[in-house]
């Protein structure tokens, strides 16, 4: 019997069809919208994932990354359905599997790790109760559940697992909750784990721990992982293979390290150029103009969905969709102008970038011995000792100076911001503005809000949902009746300043995108042309291309209005790009401060060193997560 005749027997066909692929998608598409004019949220998606490997899905919000997980779980949002193609899991057609069989395979064979661990755990049940419930559903005998639960928590390196079982989710940190979720996901020894932005809500050091933990468990059980992330640095190190998605299309795919070593698609490259690096020369970020088209406009785009924002787009790009072309070992790119694209890579970047330095030797704001202690809980007639959110620190800001404040959650960063703004009253210390002390009087408050303004962390929460954008932008003129007639003109001016279209002035915040809302937030703080802006994590929730736009906007405003900025951030890359000086906070204490470049290049304090090491490097050859890495997040 020769080989060709073998190929026709069904048994042989199974063998020849590479049975080692655990998850196979073939021309998968998800469509939404009305039946007569459907638009594909995912179009023609093909990939293969083998056992024990990690496939990264990278892209900005709205790219359709999470849709694949939702197809697997059969949890597509209302109005969306699978439009065609195949999805095979361990040789079975997952799309046509009967509902009951599909349900059984969820949890036992396919497990999910959610983005918000706190939200995924029931707040009124103990960790133990939830773990044991899950184990019982997986078929563990009731008597063995508790022991197995302890074993699972040990496996994810949680300290004192037996006592932890009696704790409630709110008593644990975000990183610990995520470990519990991972323990749950791996409880049934699944073949496939879908991690949807599992580390996005966590601090960098927790992120490094979680990724390493995921890797270890994966090696132990030969689990395949579908790793959804928007973080290119993370994808470089946490994934074996990567799919770069844009508006539901694969733009580039290949092995993670080689793909990021030699990015070819203009979109992938633009994403890389929009991320501020932690090492190497400081270059101006090239912000990608515009934003990703919305789902409703997908149907009208005939050609490449990226063409509208692509610098190299030609007529052919708008006419038709390019095929995925192989350009290297397993490296595929979807672009008509590959030749032009690889040429541009050779161009050297021109000017060096300059972060926000002080424009004068005078100090506009000086804080001395600033601290905040929250009163302890009342116990009968006594009070427990207070909790020090911020230990005394000194701070001064000069005109035009951008100062970064970094640290993990709970380090007192936001407390400092609120103290400077005056939203909380300091326990000790004094703040003086332009040489005059700031007290509690009405005049001092007026003086304070005229010179200091705050940009809030969550742009959605900071904008009154019932006001239109025009009114929000000029909110501070509301209390000054003499200025009311100028409000419309000022709103238009501010909108132009922060790059918002005039048509947005008539809209409500819920009708804008995340980036636009953040611009409104920034624009509002500029209304009275303050000297100092206090910005609390203002770019952390944004996509990288939008983040770059917002950062460049801040630098532009500095040039025009000589504003200074106190930037609270956990992203060291952002701080390096914007700030000339940096303060490192750890558990309410200032542990290091100095010139940003010097602190990042030669960190003195061990905490600063750990913080820097935890950031996933953009360099594919770097080692991440670092081998020797201090434990930081496991103390409850």
């Amino acid at each position, binding site marked *: 019997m020769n080989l060709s005749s073998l190929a026709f027997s069904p048994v042989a066909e199974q063998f020849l069809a590479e049975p080692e692929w655990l998850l196979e998608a073939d021309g998968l598409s998800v469509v939404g919208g009305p039946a007569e004019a459907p638009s594909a949220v995912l179009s023609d998606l093909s990939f293969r994932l083998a056992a024990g490997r990690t496939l990264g899905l990278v892209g900005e919000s709205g790219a359709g990354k999470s849709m694949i997980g939702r197809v697997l779980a059969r949890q597509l949002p209302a109005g969306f359905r699978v439009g065609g193609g195949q999805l095979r899991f361990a040789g079975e057609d997952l799309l046509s599997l009967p509902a009951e069989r599909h349900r059984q395979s969820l949890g036992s064979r396919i497990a999910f790790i959610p983005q918000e661990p706190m939200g995924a755990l029931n707040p009124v049940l103990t960790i133990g109760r939830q773990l044991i419930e899950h184990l019982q559903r997986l078929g563990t005998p009731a008597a063995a559940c508790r022991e197995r639960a302890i074993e699972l928590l040990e496996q994810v390196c949680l300290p004192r697992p037996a006592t932890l079982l009696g704790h409630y989710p709110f008593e644990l940190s975000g990183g610990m909750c995520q470990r519990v979720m991972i323990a749950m996901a791996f409880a049934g020894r699944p073949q496939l784990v879908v991690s949807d932005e599992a580390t996005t809500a966590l601090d960098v050091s927790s992120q490094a721990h979680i990724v390493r933990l995921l890797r270890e468990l994966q090696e132990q059980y030969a689990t395949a992982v579908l790793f959804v992330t928007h973080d290119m640095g993370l994808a470089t190190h946490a994934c074996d293979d990567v799919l770069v998605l844009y508006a539901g299309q694969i733009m580039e795919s290949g092995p993670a390290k080689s793909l990021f070593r030699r990015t070819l698609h203009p979109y992938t490259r633009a994403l890389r150029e929009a991320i501020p690096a932690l090492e190497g020369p400081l270059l101006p970020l090239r912000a990608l103009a515009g934003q990703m088209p919305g789902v409703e406009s997908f149907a009208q785009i005939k050609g490449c969905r990226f063409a509208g924002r692509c610098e190299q787009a030609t007529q052919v790009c708008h006419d038709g969709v390019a095929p995925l072309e192989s350009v290297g070992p397993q490296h595929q790119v979807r672009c008509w102008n590959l030749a032009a694209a690889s040429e541009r890579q050779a161009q050297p970047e021109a000017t060096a970038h300059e972060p926000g330095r002080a424009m004068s030797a005078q100090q506009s704001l000086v804080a001395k011995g600033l601290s905040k202690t929250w009163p302890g809980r009342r116990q009968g007639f006594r009070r427990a000792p207070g909790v020090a959110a911020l230990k005394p620190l000194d701070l001064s800001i000069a005109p035009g100076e951008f100062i970064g404040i970094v640290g993990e959650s709970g380090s007192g960063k936001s407390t400092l911001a609120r103290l400077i703004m005056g939203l909380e009253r300091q326990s000790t210390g004094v703040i003086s503005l332009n040489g005059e002390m700031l007290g509690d009087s009405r005049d001092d408050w007026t003086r304070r809000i005229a010179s200091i303004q705050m940009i*809030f962390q969550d742009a959605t929460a900071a904008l009154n949902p019932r006001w239109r954008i025009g009114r929000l932008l000029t909110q501070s003129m509301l209390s000054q009746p003499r200025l009311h007639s100028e409000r419309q003109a000022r709103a238009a001016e501010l909108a132009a300043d922060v790059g918002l279209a005039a048509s947005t002035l008539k809209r409500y915040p819920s009708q804008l995108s995340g980036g636009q809302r953040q611009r409104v937030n920034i624009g509002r703080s500029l209304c009275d042309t303050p000297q100092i802006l206090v910005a609390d994590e203002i770019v952390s929730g944004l996509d990288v291309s939008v983040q770059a736009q917002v950062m460049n906007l801040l630098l532009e405003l500095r040039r025009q209005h000589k504003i200074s900025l106190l930037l609270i951030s956990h992203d060291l890359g952002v701080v390096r790009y914007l700030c000339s000086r940096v303060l490192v906070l750890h558990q309410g204490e200032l542990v290091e401060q100095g010139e940003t470049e010097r602190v990042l290049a030669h960190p003195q304090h061990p905490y600063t060193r750990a913080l820097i090491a935890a950031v996933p490097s953009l360099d594919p050859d770097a080692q991440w997560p670092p081998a020797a890495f201090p434990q930081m997040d496991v103390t409850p």
Partner: protein
Amino acid sequence: MTALSVSLGRRTLARPGLLFGAGFLLLLTLLALAAPWLAPHDPNEQDLLNVLLPPLWATGGSLDYPLGTDALGQCVLSRLLYGARVVVIIMAIAPLGAALIGCLLALLGGYFGGWLDWLVERFVDLWLSFPAVLLALILMVALSPGVQNVILAIVFVDWARFCRVLRAEVLLLRRRSYVAASRIGGAGALGIIWRDILPGLLPTLIVLMAMEFSIAVVAESVLSFAGMSAAPQVPTWGGMIADGMGSLYSSPYPLLLPVFCMILTVLAATFLGQGLREAVDVRLLERAGAA
């Protein structure tokens, strides 16, 4: 174009429940206003020759008494129409009064906090620990019968519910970033309450008001059923139910018709509240085609 450019009026019209609720209550108001002209008889006029007549559509009904007569030979239709006047007046005023007092105290306590909040909360606790119907009955005994006193009794009993729910909402709203944003925008306490907190309370307030419409109608009926509502000569739906009890087995209509009217009114009030909340709440406007 989707919800983007749709005005409040258009959003209102798009909801059949709201239209039904508003339509019915409007109709009820008009009928109540026009009662003297519409009613075929004086509501207290007794026709002892024609007692317990069935309505028009049943056998033995007469055009003279379209909805029949009760045990005293009074026209049921006329009594229903005049009874609607009491219902409409109470529905219009009692919820407003309760909302006003409850909202005011909730804002004072919730926004300013401290001892003021403690005081308001304890007062509400105290108030809610009385059984509502009993409190109302005692109040009605202390006051004298009369529509204005019924309103007073309902307001006095029900403001605490408003206060409790709204205070919790104020506490939540006060911590929102946009309130902090208003503060650093130079707004004073009154400005923040007026522009940020009150509009945020509106959806909850409307739901509470709609609930209070129904509760007021039912409460008035309970009081008049017990004979402690408006003056004895004023016909009320609750009083009609009480009168109808006696002749339930010989003729159920004098009992069933006011019950039916009450059910419809309560239902309409509920639909109106639900629809209004959806129409007023701009948070429910989605960004068109959000991915």
